[in-house]
């Protein structure tokens, strides 16, 4: 069980352009073992998606890799030739389903033609659309999808179905690591539930070894993942077992974030719910020290000047001076 699927060490990625430098991801170290499902939660603009993009090795324009290590099953993603990355790592070891992936299906092609194109690209062999259909039918059956979906055009499918088909296609080569960005953001609650069920199924049937799910919806992550990483301003604030974090959040940010959620539960009506004061910092100009300190109710002097190191507490990684004591790597 102790097989490492993904390891990152001090991963950094900045956006550079006429707007200056945006410190999108600034030093993230995380290890994902086989069988783990890691959820990334945080406000918009905190670098969740940037982190996912950096893991793929082919980021969007203006995002630049600035240092650190991404190791996916022995492949050092940022130091291997792009051709190797494309031919050997992607789809086979790691598969990335970006945000709004449902729109990436080609609207002018039947889905099977699209799949045939993809198979040609990945295997260097030509397949006819019907061959592609046959190849995928078992895989789709495993995920409780009818293979009939391959014969139609994307616009004939609902949003939830499109998303499910996209994920089915991207797990075809049984990647070890599946990275999904906001799989449920544009879906209704009933399709959301189906989506969560499907992702859990993929994992249970061992089509993939581990999964990273990026979402702003903590309720959904709670159902899907067994580990949670709480991100704020490009860094991990707290990372550990999902149940532990939900039941006993250590970092002030996690505590406030959980306190501002509105689940459908009776106590919310009478509870005096509060939002987190202030706003997420502009990452062109991040605050020094702990990046949460301007909004933190338990801010101390040291928080304003020195970055807290991630320390282990109750089996979790917490970056907060409340728990760090004196040892630090400084900034």
């Amino acid at each position, binding site marked *: 069980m102790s097989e490492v699927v993904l390891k990152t060490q001090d991963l950094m990625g900045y956006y550079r352009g006429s707007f200056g430098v945006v410190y999108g991801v600034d030093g993230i170290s995380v290890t994902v073992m086989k069988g783990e499902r890691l959820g990334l939660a945080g*406000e*918009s603009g905190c670098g969740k998606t940037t982190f996912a993009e950096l893991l793929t090795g082919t980021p969007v324009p203006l995002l630049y890799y600035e240092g650190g290590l991404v190791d996916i099953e022995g492949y050092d993603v940022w130091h291997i030739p792009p051709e190797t990355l494309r031919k050997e790592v992607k789809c086979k070891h790691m598969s990335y389903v970006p945000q709004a992936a449902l729109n990436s299906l080609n609207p002018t092609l039947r889905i099977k033609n699209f799949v045939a194109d993809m198979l040609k690209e990945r295997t260097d062999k030509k397949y006819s659309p019907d061959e592609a259909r046959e190849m995928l039918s078992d895989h789709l059956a495993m995920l409780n999808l009818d293979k009939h979906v391959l014969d139609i055009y994307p616009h004939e499918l609902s949003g939830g179905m499109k998303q499910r088909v996209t994920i089915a296609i991207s797990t075809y080569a049984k990647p070890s690591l599946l990275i999904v960005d906001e799989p449920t953001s544009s879906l*209704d*609650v*009933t399709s*959301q*539930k189906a989506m*969560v*069920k499907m992702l*859990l199924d993929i994992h249970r049937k061992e089509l993939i070894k581990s999964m990273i799910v990026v979402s*702003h*919806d*903590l*309720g*959904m992550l*709670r*159902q899907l993942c067994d580990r949670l990483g709480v991100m704020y301003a490009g860094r991990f604030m707290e990372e550990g077992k999902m149940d532990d974090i*939900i039941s006993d959040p250590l970092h002030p940010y996690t505590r*406030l*974030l*959980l306190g*501002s*959620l*509105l*689940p*459908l*539960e*009776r106590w*919310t*009506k009478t509870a005096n*719910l*509060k*939002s*987190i004061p202030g*706003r*997420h910092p502009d990452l062109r100009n991040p605050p020094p020290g702990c990046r949460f300190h301007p909004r933190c109710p338990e801010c101390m002097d040291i928080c304003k000047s020195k970055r807290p190191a991630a320390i282990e507490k109750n089996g979790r990684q917490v970056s907060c001076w409340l728990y760090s004591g004196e040892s630090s790597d400084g900034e």
Partner: protein
Amino acid sequence: MVDKFLAGFTQERVQMANKDEILKVENLTKYYISGYMFTKKVLGAEDVSFDLKKGEVLSIVGESGSGKSTVANMILRLFNPTSGKIFLDGKDAFSFNKKDYWRRVQAIFQDPYSTFNHYYNVDRPLMDSFDLLENSGKTYSKTERKEIINKTLETIGMNPDEILGRYPHQTSGGEMQRLLIARTLIIGPEVLVADEPTSMTDASTRVAILNELLRLKEEREMAVLFITHDVGQAYYVSDRAAVMKDGRIVEMGPAEKVFFDPEHPYTKNLIASVPKVHEKWDI
């Protein structure tokens, strides 16, 4: 001046407090008709009836395409209904002059980015909102307008020096939605139609907007029609709730009853599909 301005609203409220029902909707139906020669009908909403009392929040919950926003747009008189009637304060909504109507019925829309004109800074919609008020006889000079705007922004916890003068692309979605709340505060309508007012905000700032709506309801006795797909939020703000499916209201009643003891199978299914943080699904 400002205090008088704000006090004016409460006086109006006291006078009208005996008449409780402010908005009434009867058998509202809307078909969207497309095509020119071979027309195609698409059902938007059918047979929607409800009433809204002063100082009450009614939420309409449903999945996308269930007709929530159609109902909102008809109440705002942005679409004409195919059939059915809307009454504001006992009078037919379509008998009002549009400007008078919008003085009394205002909205916060789903997408604040398209509410603001991107060529002007965010002060403009706030300044322009006084034009609606001037329609009823009063006039406001520029300094008076600025003073009222500053005061209103402060009451909803925004720093006017920080936010005014910015352009829409320099503000976050959540800030824009709060600016729209400030705008409704200035106009002081009797009915507020809030169509997914938290769609552009993070969990961490969502509660602030909802609390603002609750305050409008408490302090100004505004009737709020809250439209959302998020049942958690709906339960938090509303006194009563209606669940819509395929253009029809399938269940309506007190929030407590609808969300915790639903009768209709669709409502049951909807509520079972909402992910909870402190409970895990067995799937």
